[in-house]
């Protein structure tokens, strides 16, 4: 970003022009691939498509809102349940089930929050919806608010999208002028107010309870569930539904085509379409909207994204954003697959044959997550990759609970030391232990998010980590960083017991 302008596809040699530039530069997009099934992304990259409401209305926009307000609330929630829509933000929780947690006769005000804090590394789908098709999102929000009887909706947009926030604000104003938002929407007697709330650069604000805390004006420390389920004790301790941008857009299309028809797309229990974002060492990185489960990993990487660059070979894939466990290219996966005649067989699949849906990827030992597929070829050092991921998580930990705050930083320091040539033989084992001690022992799922990459990389690529972990002793600390120096410099009062000689005595063979 140069000031507030976003630049994509930056060529390292063009930096001088960039620093002088004044406009955002979004690159041209290719045509949708034949294997895609564009519903949500129908208008993204479309010729002559503009973000204003006139373009949207001319294309049949807001008809689904008109349809929805004539339905009853329970009908809309039922349509979403029948459709089998699963959350597209990363957890894949069934949206209809989430919505049914809100009681129809709820006395407290109900809030809908649109989670537009797209910060998962490898994910860049919500960005296009916000910047290029904002009215689709607003229509989805209006329909959802009507279904949940929510009078107020907040769009929590990440701070790094200043233009997106402006585009959405303008779109909200236009929607107000046309009576699609605000008082007495289209004569239905229902009022809804949608406000933009800008974040300020914290990944943990994407966690739903962290988001709620941030919306309340506090530090984004997530809340523990139970008891703080957002549908019960959410924003201002009122029932709140937090949904991803893509999920809310899908709601609009479910109303348009009907829940049953939406459920026919994709696979049972993994219905509809979703947007996958392919990045890494492929010829044509970018977004692809596919029917869930109808496209395999091999088709995605080799046909849609053009295969591995420079003619290299695939080494690993991270299928769901950097929080997902990595999959080796030469791994075989044993998955139960339902046959058309109803029977279930156990199939032995290679990574290329893995269907891109929630259940298959979960059964393969990873997760579909936010749909950010990162492709790694055989030129990539796995320790370097893991270090990059660990640096991210170490920085983004909110600091609330000890395993994550200390463990994430510790794991980053270990991989950093390994890259600098100071890896000791216990390091892979230490990394695994730290990961095991973080996952499942934290207040929010960030613990799993920072532990899973380390656990999976160390487990699946032991030879690479062993190659970086040959020393028997770690390198000495620089003199200015030894504990003695630090204590003297910072003037920390210590007792003789504070400096435990146990570590020095235990030496390199110590078991942690």
């Amino acid at each position: 970003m140069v000031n507030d302008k976003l630049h994509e596809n930056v060529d390292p040699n063009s930096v001088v022009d960039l620093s002088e530039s004044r406009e955002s530069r979004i690159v041209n997009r290719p045509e949708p691939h034949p294997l895609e099934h564009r519903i949500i992304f129908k208008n993204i990259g479309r010729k002559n498509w503009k973000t204003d409401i006139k373009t949207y209305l001319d294309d049949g926009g807001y008809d689904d809102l008109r349809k929805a307000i004539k339905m009853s609330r329970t009908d809309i929630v039922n349509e979403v349940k029948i459709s089998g829509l699963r959350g597209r933000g990363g957890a894949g929780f069934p949206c209809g089930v989430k919505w049914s947690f809100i009681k129809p006769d709820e006395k407290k005000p109900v809030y809908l929050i649109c989670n537009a804090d797209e910060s998962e590394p490898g994910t860049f789908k919500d960005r296009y919806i916000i910047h290029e098709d904002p009215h689709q999102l607003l229509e989805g929000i209006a329909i959802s608010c009507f279904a949940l009887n929510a009078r107020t909706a907040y769009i929590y947009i990440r701070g790094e999208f200043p233009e997106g926030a402006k585009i959405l604000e303008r779109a909200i104003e236009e929607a107000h002028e046309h009576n699609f938002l605000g008082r007495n929407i289209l004569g239905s007697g229902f009022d809804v107010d949608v406000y933009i709330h800008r974040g300020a650069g914290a990944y943990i604000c994407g966690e739903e309870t962290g988001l709620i805390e941030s919306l309340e004006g506090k530090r984004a420390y997530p809340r523990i569930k139970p008891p703080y389920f957002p549908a019960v004790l959410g924003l201002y301790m009122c029932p709140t539904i937090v949904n991803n941008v893509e999920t809310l857009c899908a709601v609009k299309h479910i109303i348009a085509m009907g829940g049953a028809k939406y459920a026919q797309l994709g696979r049972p229990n993994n219905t509809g379409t979703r947007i996958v974002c392919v990045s890494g060492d492929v010829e044509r990185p970018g977004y692809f909207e596919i029917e869930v489960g109808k496209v395999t990993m091999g088709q995605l990487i080799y046909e849609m994204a053009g295969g591995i660059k420079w003619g290299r070979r695939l080494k690993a894939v991270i299928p769901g954003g950097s929080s997902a466990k990595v999959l080796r290219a030469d791994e075989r996966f044993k998955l139960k697959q339902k046959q058309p005649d109803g029977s279930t067989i156990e199939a032995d699949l290679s990574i290329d044959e893995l269907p891109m849906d929630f259940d298959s990827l979960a059964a393969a030992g990873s997760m579909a997550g936010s749909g950010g597929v990162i492709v790694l070829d055989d030129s990539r050092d796995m320790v370097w990759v893991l270090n990059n991921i660990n640096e991210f998580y170490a920085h983004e930990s909110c600091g609330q609970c000890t395993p994550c705050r200390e463990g994430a930083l510790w794991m980053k320091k270990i991989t950093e030391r390994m890259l600098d040539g100071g890896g000791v033989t216990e390091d892979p084992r230490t990394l695994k232990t730290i990961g095991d001690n973080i996952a499942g022992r934290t207040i929010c799922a960030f613990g799993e998010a920072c532990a899973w990459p380390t656990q999976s990389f160390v487990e699946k690529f032991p030879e690479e980590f062993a190659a970086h972990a040959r020393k028997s002793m770690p390198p000495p600390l620089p003199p200015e960083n030894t504990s003695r120096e630090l204590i003297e410099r910072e003037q920390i009062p210590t007792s003789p017991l504070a400096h435990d000689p146990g570590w020095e005595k235990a030496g390199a063979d110590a078991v942690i």
Partner: protein
Amino acid sequence: MDEAIGHYPPDEKRSAALPLLHLWQEHFDFINDDAVTWIAAKLGLQPINILELVTFYPMLREKRAGKTHIRVCRTLSCAMAGSYQVMENFCAATGIPPVTEYTRRFPPALTEVSASSLSNVWQAAAPHRFAW
């Protein structure tokens, strides 16, 4: 600012803290102690309630930035596409060493030309392609 406060329920003015901080930073370029006390007073909070946000959220800065603020994504997808090289090229072209994050200890470097402090900020990855 009052319009921003009006986005939230009347007894939940604390929610407006982050929007007000954004507005202040857009106008004054950075958040100083005056900002913290003023915004706290405006919302009926204690100054610590505002300071804790400034020290938590990376985008809020306590030191002035320069005329041009360049941010380069460093997460995996962008790193694999060459963003570290982009960062080095920026540093070489402008002659400013990289600042990995705004902290109280590192004032942004200022030069007499247009580009100024650089920071390596975590940002959602965008598809990157490059030709060496």
